[in-house]
């Protein structure tokens, strides 16, 4: 394959010399192919670069992912807050270690300029660090000790809602997914995400980061595939306690919200575009974390 851009050429040489990579799903801490055997081809932004293959997850894969996330929930929810913070921090370290790969994926599949891709990665890492530090402060900032007017003591603490469905936009690839994943995981929720189209390779590379960051098996499960095909199944699955969806399509909002009512799911919607939204400070928002927590108030009498 001939390339004009010398940087491109170097990359392709690396690819030719290395092992061709196929991206699998991330389910329960393992990397299986879709049970359906289907895959999608992700075409590069530039004709001269190599395409990639990602799995096209099926409804059954989704069910398996929700099951894995459900099983992982009690342990992750009960994990010590500082441990959750340290694991998110570890993910930031591992993202940084894979800097070249993430930047390359944004360039190849999203057509991002190298400097932009690097800035996005820096921002994504920053977002992860910001959230890592929140883990052991949430109870103090979102919780309270309440002055009961009577001989009782009580306090209110935030707890995770359960398994959260995460539907990030297609571009950029890494930054929005991380910006949606971190606020969900930090409080002890577990998650199933669906990355569609060009975002697939970045998502599964992030899954490799997660797999090497001591994130317990099943806490995050990453699917790739066709959003139109899977959205109705995300919407109707009663294993989800909440939806976290970035979209510019009012029809997607309507569908998710209508089905959410059947199980009284919590919801938060974000705009999918413009990319500048994801590159702004707005992705560090305590309210995003709060959206996927429940407040528990525990009482006890005071007396001898």
């Amino acid at each position: 394959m001939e390339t004009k851009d010398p940087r491109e050429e170097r990359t392709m040489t690396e690819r030719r010399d290395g092992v061709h990579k196929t991206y699998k799903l991330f389910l329960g801490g393992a990397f299986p192919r879709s049970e359906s055997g289907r895959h999608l081809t992700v075409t590069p932004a530039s004709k001269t670069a190599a395409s990639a293959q990602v799995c096209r997850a099926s409804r059954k894969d989704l069910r398996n992912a929700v099951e894995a996330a459900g099983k992982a929930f009690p342990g992750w929810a009960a994990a010590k807050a500082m441990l959750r913070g340290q694991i998110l921090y570890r993910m930031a370290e591992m993202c940084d270690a894979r800097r070249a790969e993430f930047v390359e994926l944004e360039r190849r599949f999203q057509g991002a300029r190298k400097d932009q891709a690097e800035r996005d990665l820096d921002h994504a890492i920053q977002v992860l660090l910001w959230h890592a530090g929140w883990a052991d402060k949430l109870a103090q900032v979102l919780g309270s000790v309440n002055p009961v007017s009577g001989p009782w003591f009580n306090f209110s603490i935030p707890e995770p809602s359960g398994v959260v469905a995460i539907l990030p936009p297609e571009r950029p690839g890494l930054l929005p997914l991380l910006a949606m994943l971190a606020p969900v995981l930090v409080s002890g929720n577990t998650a199933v995400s669906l990355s569609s189209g060009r975002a697939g390779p970045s998502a599964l590379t992030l899954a490799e980061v997660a797999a090497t960051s001591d994130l317990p098996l099943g806490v995050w499960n990453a699917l790739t595939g066709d959003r139109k095909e899977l959205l109705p199944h995300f919407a109707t699955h009663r294993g989800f306690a909440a939806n976290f969806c970035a979209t510019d399509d009012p029809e997607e909002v309507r569908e998710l919200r209508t089905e959410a009512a059947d199980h009284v799911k919590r919801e938060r919607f974000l705009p999918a575009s413009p990319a500048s939204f994801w590159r702004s400070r707005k992705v560090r928002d305590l309210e995003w974390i709060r959206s996927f927590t429940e407040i528990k108030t525990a009482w006890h009498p005071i007396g001898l």
Partner: protein
Amino acid sequence: MTDSKTGYASRPPHPLAEPPESFPYAPSREDPTLAAIAKTHDLWIDGEWRKPRRGRFPTLNPATGEELSRIALAGPADVDRAVRAARRALPAWADLPGVERARRLFAVARILQERSREFAVLETLDNGKPIRESRDVDVPLAAAHFFYYAGWADKLEYALPGGRKPEPRGVCGQIIPWNFPLLMAAWKLAPALACGNTVVLKPAETSSLSALRLVEVLEQAGIPKGVVNVVTGPGEVGAALVRHEGLDKLAFTGSTEVGKTIQAALAGRPVSLTLELGGKGAHIIFEDAPLSQAVEGIVQGIFFNQGQVCCAGSRLFVQEGILDEVMDRLRSRLATLRLGDPLDKNTDLGAIHSLPQWEKIRSYLEIGKEEGAELWQAPAEIPSRGWWCPPSLFSNVTPSMRIAREEIFGPVLAILGFRTPEEALAKANDSLYGLSAGIWTDKGSKIFEMARGLRAGVVWANCYNRFDPASPFGGYKESGFGREGGLHGLLPYLRT
């Protein structure tokens, strides 16, 4: 003297287990004329009483079945007028200095306290609950809620972390249930008004009187016209309110079934929603619990307000070693409860709120028997008029039975056993609901472990059914989302 099994001091039978015939309670009846109920009621819209175009319907005294008054039936045009009035009133109310909103809400609390006897009698007549409860719980708590949130009105910048500017949501539709009519109105109105929102309130059709009377208090306290509007009528009025395009926020307290239809109805619209829905509270009694207190807690948990409480402890889990003893103690305690005239200050159990609710409870009693559970009812003299249900216990219950899974909303307790704390947790959490739970044990570490594991918004340890304006209340899972009470109760009424 100690119990050979537990090592604890053995407990003598409750002194009131067999009340001697020689100590009858003399009636101590509150004066119903204190409620001074008008023959008809209109709609409160834009600071005026407006006659309904669609006529009126009766509201009944559940203890007698007699008509108390005729309530206005709001139509879609009335709802529209109310929402528009709330919209017009919004800018001035939202821009009023917080301290001015505070001053008025403090006044609401004070006037309510001053008129508490009148409100208690009114509430008991319209709802059927014992005067002891409306006097000691509903009315004082309603006043306390206004007092608590009044103080927030000029301190909202301290409510949101990170220096976010507090802004009201706007026009709020608020739909409330019949089990605590005045208290639920207070829970809804106080935080909404403190944050600078305006409101269209829809009380339950069978219990509108105290909300309509509250309007007088709001007026006395100087709440400007249009800031609170009250539209009365059945579910279709609430549905018209939900459908109205002029709402920024909707808050609903009621059944999970209706809550789901509201959530679906708002799917395509940018209306913020909070739901406080049903429950099937797990009440867990460990072998090391202080049993006499636990039995009182169980009674408080399920027979408070005739069990017509969303957070009622309607599933009782008793550790197997003490199951028989708890059953015995419960039966003898329940035999002492007095069912009857809700206006009598001695009454423990009042009337079931309405005929449909009474029928629902009765159908669950039948369902429970058909499912193979064993029903025991406390001996009680059932008055000849009105709707009543004696304290009812189901034993031999399995977790899959409908009486153990579905919300009955009546004085009916399903009793199950368990062996280990892990089993209790698993059984307690095996529910679509997640509103409330109770734990009884003398061991502190066990309380924390259980409280952490229970998926419920309120966990009462060694107590049950306690409420407080500064303490958040609300559910996990299908019991809804959003909190009422405390700092967290402000959030539904501020833009986030």
